[in-house]
């Protein structure tokens, strides 16, 4: 069995903080009011370290490390905001905007979108990369929800919540690279899925307007993934 976690002290952006050895840099930073941007991370889901928004610099290491999966260590010196990191974060966002068809003005999630929020926070006013403008379908076969692939950033939050919390594993990915596509079951229309329980958790955790409630009109899509921390606390007997 793992030994009981020890207390570690480290510095994040010059502020001395203490954290338990099983905590990540992201946990420790947030506990101390230091915000690190994230997209694929969501409290209550396993980490995948895929979006690279939370990369931080560690003193003594040339490689940038994702704060969401890197455990704290004694004497660690973490820097979360440098011109280099900010540049990379802007580029991650630019790459996402150029990858598929993100048209905020006609999106149901306009003003309530984590991708948009991050773009605003990082001053992404325009995209330097050529727009790829792929032709992607919209799946409206489900009775209550819809999936617009044009707005999907492949963060896999829906895949994880469906598998880890709901236990249905309706969602997964097809293909690879830029051709990756979110699919339900064995690539059948969402409405014909045998496993989907229509619980709607995937819609609540989706950071953009890719998964949305058909009954809601644009600008009214308030997503609420807070149920995750509640469920986890229940599971771990903390409530």
């Amino acid at each position, binding site marked *: 069995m793992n030994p009981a976690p020890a207390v570690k002290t480290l510095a994040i952006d010059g502020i001395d903080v203490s954290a338990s050895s099983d905590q990540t840099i992201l946990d420790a930073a947030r506990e101390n009011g230091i915000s690190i941007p994230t997209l694929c991370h969501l409290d209550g889901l396993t980490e*995948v*370290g895929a979006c*690279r928004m939370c990369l931080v610099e560690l003193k003594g290491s040339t490689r940038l490390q994702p704060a969401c999966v890197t455990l704290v260590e004694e004497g660690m010196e973490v820097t979360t905001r440098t011109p280099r990191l900010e540049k990379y974060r802007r*580029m991650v966002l630019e*790459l996402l905007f150029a990858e598929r068809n993100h048209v905020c003005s006609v999106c149901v999630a306009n003003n309530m979108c984590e991708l948009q929020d991050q773009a605003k926070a990082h001053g992404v006013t325009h995209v330097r990369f050529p727009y790829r403008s792929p032709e992607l379908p919209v799946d409206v076969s489900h009775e209550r929800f819809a999936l617009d692939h044009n707005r999907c950033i492949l963060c896999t939050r829906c895949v994880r919540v469906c598998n880890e919390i709901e236990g249905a594993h309706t969602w997964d990915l097809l293909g690879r690279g*830029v051709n*990756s596509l979110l699919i339900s079951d064995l690539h059948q229309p969402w409405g014909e899925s045998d496993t989907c329980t229509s619980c709607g958790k995937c819609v609540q955790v989706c950071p953009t307007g890719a998964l949305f409630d058909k009954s809601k009109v644009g600008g009214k899509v308030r997503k609420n993934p807070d149920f995750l921390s509640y469920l986890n606390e229940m599971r771990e007997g903390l409530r």
Partner: protein
Amino acid sequence: MTLDELEQIANEVQAAKEKSPRALNVCVAAGCLSLHSDAIKSALEKEVQRTGVNCRVAGTGCMGLCSLGPLVNREPDGQLLKNVAEADAAEIVEKLESVPPERLLCSREQPFFQRQTAVVLENSGRINPEKIEEYIAAEGYQALVRALTEMAPAQIVQEVSKSGLRGRGGAGYPTGLKWGTVAKTIGTTKYVICNADEGDPGAFMDRSVLESDPHRVLEGMIVAGYAVGASQGYIYVRAEYPLAIKRLQAAIRDARRLGFLGSQICNAKFSFDIEIRIGGGAFVCGEETALIASIEGRRGTPRPRPPFPAQSGLWQMPTLINNVESFANIPTILRRGGEWYASLGTKKSKGTKVFALCGKVRNVGLIEVPMGTPLRQIIFEIGGGIPDGHRFKAVQTGGPSGGCIPEQSLDLPVDYESLKEVGSIMGSGGMIVMDDSACMVNVARYFMEFCMSESCGKCIPCRAGTAQMFELLTRMTSGTATPQDLELLEDLCDMVSSTSLCGLGQSAPNPVLSTLRYFREEYTEHIVDKHCRAGVCECNHLAEVSA
């Protein structure tokens, strides 16, 4: 199995050879087989039967000089026959005791053979890969029996450390250190994995080793299992290597039959078995964490490290994962000693390295040289230089993760550090020689296309970044790029290599970065003058139209 029993098997093989000393060994590894060497083998068999001469006809592994295949090795005089056709069978058998026909004669006195040092390839082309007895006659499985009966696991790790062997998959992590870490990690169940998911364009070293001498890899894995305390091994081999899979299956069966696999191997308190896992066609599964995910039956995508597989690998158990060539070195290291191995090579890169030499070079094939051999010697002496009166331009090492090395760096000794210094990497051993008919922008575009289509899509920099870099490079080769596109490309190279999750993305910009470093003027020509000096790219056409 004891050493005496091994010797007895070896003696039997020897006796059979003495009874019938004449033999024709036909290469039946993938290169020659693609030229129908199996038909040549049957033609020779038929001819021998028809004439009634006392001569064995057998299949062997790769003899190295693939460009002159199909190759046939004649015993006992060791004469090598090149470009053999079915129609030559009668003449070959007829002249078994005299000099072979001039047109078929392939001299072993040429630098291609003379400048090589065989360790991993010591049995390639000499033994029948489908006969375990022949491997045993070539001192095979001696290291295993010795290790199990005379050595403690820690001693084996020490010997491997002493040899200075570094991971032959490309990254060059010290093998002994890795073994030591897995051995010391506490766990009741541990695994050994052999990474045979060789996928770099132009690389065929591991395939050849598996096809020509599969038992060497098994022996290395079993010794590793004993050294680190594992009882199950997996070989992850790509489905595109059907012959290697077939030979491995036969080898595992034979090894089980003779008790090298199974329970209480050599009467030691050690059980070990090996299973084959066949890849599904994803290049990224050569990355160790993606490979492990694939063996577990999940989608083959990498995960962040740490934890490293040595701590938490297959099914969260401590896992030793090494490349084919790394394992293939182990039997010889144990047989001849770590110190002997360390006497080969350079200060920091010990031993030998197998390279797949291909592209615009006379002698295309498989070679093994001591680390530190200058590139010039590899390409111009062993490789025989550039054919058809063309000039050497660059050599690409390390596949899509590597870079292009220009003429001025040719005197570089091949080892992990110096290749890195010039902007390339050792990689798994693919070496693609390019002459003046190659456009370096186009080469960079080719490798970027490879990375783009092989990116798993998990992390954004690699998924979207490689696609953008490919688009920018396509603009250059098609003559529609602007100087800003070059700036953007360089920005992306920096970002993708610094932020990607796994080695595939981190190294994807290398072909662009190294060609920019040595052939920047070609990029400028494509962008400003819409001119491709090699005459490969579309942009030339565009310039003609507008002129």
